[in-house]
């Protein structure tokens, strides 16, 4: 199950509300609000493909975009869950730095075997999350304050661990995870004019397409069995074909360069896992219930405090993952690592359709939000824009995304 483009995972999980009978006029609005982000992403990709003369979608560049943004995307997954529950986490940048430093000390200074060191680092991140989760959930301090304090505390912890120096290099395995690619296990095949490409990567891509088709078909068959309305078969197949085409395009481009980045494999697993969690798990449903109406959730028997606590633990673990990836990529744990990552992760979540009041959002949305910023960064640097202009555009995009959300919500509210 290695899918690439997040839009596919979204399709694989389906949007139940998109296929309702009897409310055609509203359906369009609903779809626009839900799918606006994907349309925007597609337009941005097309725009920069044109501006860069196709360089944006060149094999090496696609690979770069994935690898360069992977740690933000990992953080965005944890962040969107926290935002859905109606909280925020400002400390993730510092936790990234602290976990990277902690991992480096273990592996470089104390020669702890790398698998064990990685595991302990994740526990370390989880403990940090538990600390913050305790103050937010059980002590009742607003997450904004707790994690603002955490931002300072864990930066201080980083500096204490590192003593104002960088620590490296990391073992090869860790660097491979952050920066490396799958091996050409099955050799290359020729793709005519496109040249050689890695057969293994392409097979993974084909398998992913098959998996998507199969899960989608099963979901549809299940709905039909329960007499639920489903979208017309032609549209269903059309969507699948588009998704498969995008997926295969990305995989083939990657296969032509240096096979699949390992972080992409990791990301795919995380995105699918967390999407299923939010859609289908009792715990995932409870996140939305807590964010949608805290009191109603409490009186419906949801253990609200426990849900919030575990969300922060989860965020800590994911920050640990991001810390390892980031440190491994630089091959050095650095006192300033992760600086302002929290802002990128929060921006990704809100661009991806999270609501300021909580209760709304999707993992795939946050990933798309993160990729939008990633593509803007990458595309603008390819055409040689100065960094202040990149910042300007990213700020405008964030504001526009949230303004769109507020606007559609207000329109929906006015028609009550």
């Amino acid at each position, binding site marked *: 199950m290695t899918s690439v483009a997040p839009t596919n995972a979204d399709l694989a999980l389906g949007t*139940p509300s998109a296929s309702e009978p009897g409310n055609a006029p509203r359906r369009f609005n609903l779809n626009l609000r839900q799918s606006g982000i994907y349309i925007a992403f597609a337009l941005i990709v097309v725009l920069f493909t044109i501006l860069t003369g196709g360089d944006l979608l060149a094999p090496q560049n696609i690979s770069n975009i994935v690898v360069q943004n992977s740690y933000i995307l990992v953080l965005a997954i944890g962040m969107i869950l926290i935002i859905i529950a109606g909280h925020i986490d400002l400390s993730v940048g510092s936790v990234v730095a602290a976990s990277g430093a902690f991992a480096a000390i273990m592996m470089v200074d104390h020669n702890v075997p790398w698998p064990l060191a990685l595991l302990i680092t994740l526990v370390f991140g989880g403990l940090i999350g538990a600390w913050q989760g305790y103050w937010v959930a059980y002590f009742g301090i607003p997450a904004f304050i707790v994690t603002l304090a955490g931002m300072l505390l864990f930066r201080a912890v980083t500096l204490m661990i590192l003593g104002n120096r960088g620590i490296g290099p990391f073992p090869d395995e860790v660097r491979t995870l952050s920066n490396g690619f799958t091996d050409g296990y099955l050799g290359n095949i020729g793709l005519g004019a496109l040249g050689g490409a890695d057969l293994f990567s392409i097979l993974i891509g084909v398998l992913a397409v098959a998996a998507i088709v199969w899960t989608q078909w099963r979901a549809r068959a299940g709905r039909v069995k329960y007499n639920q309305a489903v979208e017309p078969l032609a549209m269903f197949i059309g969507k699948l074909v588009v998704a498969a085409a995008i997926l295969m395009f990305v995989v083939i481009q990657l296969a032509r360069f240096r096979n699949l980045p390992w972080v992409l494999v990791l990301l795919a697993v995380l995105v699918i896992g967390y999407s299923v969690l939010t859609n289908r798990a009792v*715990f995932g449903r409870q996140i939305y*219930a807590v964010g949608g109406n805290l009191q*109603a959730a*409490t*009186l419906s028997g949801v253990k609200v405090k426990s849900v919030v606590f575990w969300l922060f633990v989860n965020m800590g673990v994911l920050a640990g993952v991001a810390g390892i990836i980031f440190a491994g990529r630089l091959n050095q744990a650095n006192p300033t690592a992760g600086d302002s990552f929290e802002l990128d992760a929060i921006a990704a979540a809100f661009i991806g359709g999270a609501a300021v009041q909580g209760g709304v959002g999707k993992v795939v949305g946050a990933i798309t939000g993160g990729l939008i910023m990633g593509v803007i960064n990458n595309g603008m640097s390819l055409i040689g824009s100065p960094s202040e202009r990149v910042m300007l555009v990213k700020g405008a995009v964030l504001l526009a995304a949230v303004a769109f959300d507020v606007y559609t919500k207000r329109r929906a509210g006015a028609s*009550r």
Partner: protein
Amino acid sequence: MTGSDIILQMQGITKTFPGVKALQDVNLDVRRGEILAICGENGAGKSTLMKVLSGVYPHGSYDGEILFDGEPCRFAGIRDSEHRGIVIIHQELALASNLSIAENIFLGNEQATRGMIDWNKTNAAAAQLLRRVGLRENPTTQVVDLGVGKQQLVEIAKAISKDVKLLILDEPTAALNDEDSAHLLELLRGLRDEGITCVIISHKLNEVMAISDRVTIIRDGKTITTLDLAGGDVTEDRIISGMVGRDLDHRFPPHEPNVGEEVLRIEDWTVHSPTQHGRVVVREANLSVRRGEIVGLAGLMGAGRTELAMSVFGRSYGTNISGRIYRDGKEVTLKSVQDAIRHGIAYATEDRKRYGLNLIEDIKRNVSAAGLRKLAKGGWVDDNEEFKVADDYRKSMNIKAPSVGSVVGKLSGGNQQKVVLSKWIFTDPEVLILDEPTRGIDVGAKYEIYTIINRLADQGKGVLVISSELPELLGLCDRIYTLAEGRITGEVARAEATQEGLMTLMTAHGQEVPR
């Protein structure tokens, strides 16, 4: 009644939302110096009409004409309508709770001298307004320290300060106890005599009958009729039949109780306030509910009804709770909401929007919210099964919505309440505590809710109904407890219960206590 001088005319108002015609060619005349009541089921279009009038929906977003004092009005917003002397007081009060009474009254209309607020002038003017509305409070008191009834009076004082000509009140007494309601109605009569025209939107027909000069009935976005109450020949049933479009022979469905074993008993139940140290909210309460029985709990606002129910429901209210709970004769300890649900107790809150529903989610996710584990295998929810369950409830409870994917926040009050009931019935409870199950619900939907409650009792469940409306308790319940200042002051069988008798018990304790 003062002649037929028309202060406000709304002519041919039509307002459409995507896919819905909320108002169709509505005509409304308000005479100067009268109290006009607007009655209609929820969703009939009353609030929409008032939003058109006040400029919340600006000129151009609707068709038709508004004439105020004979002049056509084209309001672009609330400020415009307030400028002309039209003030609306909404059901949800819009006061800044951490500001003083005086600050609230003059919010946006500050009494300033050379750009600086003149506090002496502000407070003196506020004090004068408070005297007019009969509120004995210091103008510097913070609004957060006032009860809902007094806050309502502050809103009216604020309206008067704006030189109001037409005062519109949306469900003004919905959250008030009888005493505060009576005071408010008296005040409205006084204002009318001073020449302020009032329009009230209300579900409480006895109040409508008591206070208004005329009643305009709206149904399905159309004006049905306007009745003149001066003659005295218009009855409540006449208004109801206009609202629902059919004659309601009985406001309560007939029901023959089939009472069985005791399903819930509470003994010596005492609850302390979590916020005010040492205050006892419920004191040594004893009550029981049997299978197949509908038991009422009557009490004035602040008697501790909700507090009693919530403290039993897994201690979701109160501290220092003592006493015993028996389920089917066995003592149980309910430390959390989860415990209560596991022991077959359900509690539907009095405020469904704030405490009962996730308004941004759809019907199916609300229905499954409390019983989600029943739909889950190993922690994973079967969403097809969830759809089926919710759809079954949509049909059996007659929830009016295009599908179970409809967002709950957009449903009418009655349908929202049916979603709440579905949610709790899905948890397979043996005892249902229903707190104000028909508050803010129109007459037709009330009948449906009563039918559902009867059905639950017929299935052998015990039902405890908390209600402020005595006729409702009398029409629905087999047995009624009265609660006053946290004590159970009486237990009356249906046959012996009268409104007067219950009211005496509900106020009994307060009179016994020496001051």
